[in-house]
């Protein structure tokens, strides 16, 4: 599961839970209190208007939840509606009824605000709660008789009115943190797995490379180290040149280039170039990229010829959609003809006394 998915799922659950709580508080508990205290109200129409306003906010949230959409531009309006409804309800309350069951909206308004501000930062929601609380307190202080009983009712009522939505907001914040933490952990785990896979692939590749070199390069190096092979011997020098070119080709094989065959040939040519052999490399046509094993067969002829060339070599590639051939013409003294390892590669050698012409052709069957 991706980071965003985890977070979205947690948030959606919390959003639905908050909406259910809000509907229960506003439209069930609030309505019961409103209807029960209807006789006490001087302006029942104003109270029902406030009730309708809060219900409208909750209905909008329900639609948004179903359509999996967040609040956007409507958020400020919804908060204004909630605070406006609160003001309307408080101002039309009969005397001495603040924070009683007749004051049905006191416990309900914060939940309507909660559904709108659930995904906002914690301080935004706190600011809303405080605003509403101050609104109720101002109403009590300005328009009603301030006595001990009213203040006690207001204080005890505020514990649940203020506390419960606050608790919900805290839970939302904590859950958000947990979701982020879980996502980060998942990401780290994935990174670790990728790194491990890459490392094991690299190791496998190195083992493979070593195996490929061990048959030819290792005996040569051991021979040189033991003193069995003499570095001044031209045959040993030739073997060294071939192995060097082979290693260069091996390193070039893993490079990401547009035309691997030409890239590898260039590396082979560079070895000869360094020996002072004048190398011409020219390619014509376009061809599909042959697999590594085929490329090795194709470059082998060039590689041995280049490594053993005396003073010059011409390497050419001609390709088409269904065949590619690599030719090398060089002044090699003793051509060593490599045998192709893949069935679709044909190697031809033409020796005209001092000048050797090798052609390796690949025609995929």
């Amino acid at each position, binding site marked *: 599961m991706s980071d965003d998915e985890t977070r979205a799922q947690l948030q959606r659950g919390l959003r639905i839970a908050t909406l259910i709580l809000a509907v229960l508080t506003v439209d069930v508990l609030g309505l019961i209190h409103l209807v029960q205290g209807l006789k006490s109200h001087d302006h029942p129409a104003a109270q029902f208007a406030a009730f309708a306003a809060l219900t409208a906010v909750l209905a909008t949230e329900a639609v948004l939840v179903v359509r999996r959409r967040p609040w956007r531009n409507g958020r400020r309006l919804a908060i204004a509606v909630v605070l406006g409804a609160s003001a309307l309800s408080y101002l039309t309350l009969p005397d001495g009824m603040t924070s009683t069951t007749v004051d049905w909206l006191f416990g309900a308004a914060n939940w309507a605000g909660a559904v709108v501000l659930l995904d906002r930062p914690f301080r935004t929601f706190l600011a809303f709660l405080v605003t509403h609380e101050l609104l109720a307190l101002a109403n009590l202080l300005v328009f009603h008789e301030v006595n001990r009983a009213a203040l006690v009712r207001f204080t005890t009522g505020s514990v649940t009115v203020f506390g419960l939505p606050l608790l919900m907001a805290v839970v939302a914040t904590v859950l958000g943190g947990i979701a982020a933490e879980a996502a980060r952990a998942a990401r780290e785990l994935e990174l670790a797995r990728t790194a491990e896979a890459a490392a094991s692939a690299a190791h496998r590749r190195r083992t493979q490379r070593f195996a490929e070199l061990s048959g030819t390069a290792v005996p040569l190096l051991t021979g040189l180290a033991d003193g069995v092979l003499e570095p001044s011997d031209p045959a040993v020098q030739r073997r060294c040149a071939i192995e060097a070119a082979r290693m260069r080709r091996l390193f070039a094989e893993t490079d990401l280039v547009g035309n691997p065959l030409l890239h590898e040939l260039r590396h082979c040519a560079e070895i000869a170039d360094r020996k002072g052999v004048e190398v011409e490399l020219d390619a*014509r*046509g376009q061809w599909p990229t042959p697999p590594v094993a085929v490329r090795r067969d194709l470059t082998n002829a060039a590689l041995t010829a280049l490594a053993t060339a005396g003073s010059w070599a011409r390497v050419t590639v*001609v390709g088409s959609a269904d065949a590619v051939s690599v030719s090398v*013409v060089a002044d090699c003294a003793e051509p060593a003809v490599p045998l192709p390892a893949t069935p679709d590669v044909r190697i031809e050698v*033409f020796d005209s006394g001092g*000048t050797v012409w090798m052609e390796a052709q690949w025609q995929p069957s």
Partner: protein
Amino acid sequence: MAAELIRAVIVDDHAAIAAGVRYWCEQADPPIDLLDAGDRLAGVWTGRGADADVVIFDLELVPGKPDFGELRRLVDSGRRVVVYSQHADNATAIKCIDLGALAYLTKREGPEHLVPAVRAAAEGRGYTAPSLSGALAADDTPDRPRLSPRETEVLRAWFASSSKELVAAKLHITAKTVDTYIARVRVKYASVGRAASTKSELITRALDDGVITLAELNETAPLRR
């Protein structure tokens, strides 16, 4: 009969190239009289340059902008052109030939190809250097002329070895036959595409020399529009 001295004019913005070509021409036997027009095309059209037998033309006097238009004007006015270019791609090479250049050489090809190319052009014959040979062998455009397998084989071998003796020895033919195959390919290319006086000269000569017959010419050359 002493061969008449060939006069060539080179247009190239690189002084080193012009100097090198001059040296090759002087060392050639018999030497070729070379006029250096620098990077001014006017030098080809006026004065001594206008009388030169062969124009050695740098396709990219302005880097990145191959001047096919100027090549076309030169060919249309009957000049024998050897294109000497640093461009190595197939399309450019074939386009030059299609426009009527008698030879196309890349600047990696030295006096062993440039001198024979100038001599061939002076006689109205085409010269196919290995790089052009490779381009023709690898040509896969839909309106290319139909080549026989042997012709393609010779083109590829010439491109690969850069030595006609080696091609001849490898394919068990004579060096002259190698030349004939290459000439036939050039005639096939000359007979498709746009008409140019140098190209009709090439075809006439090939017919006269029996390199290709009229019947062969008709069957292997679908008309290009």
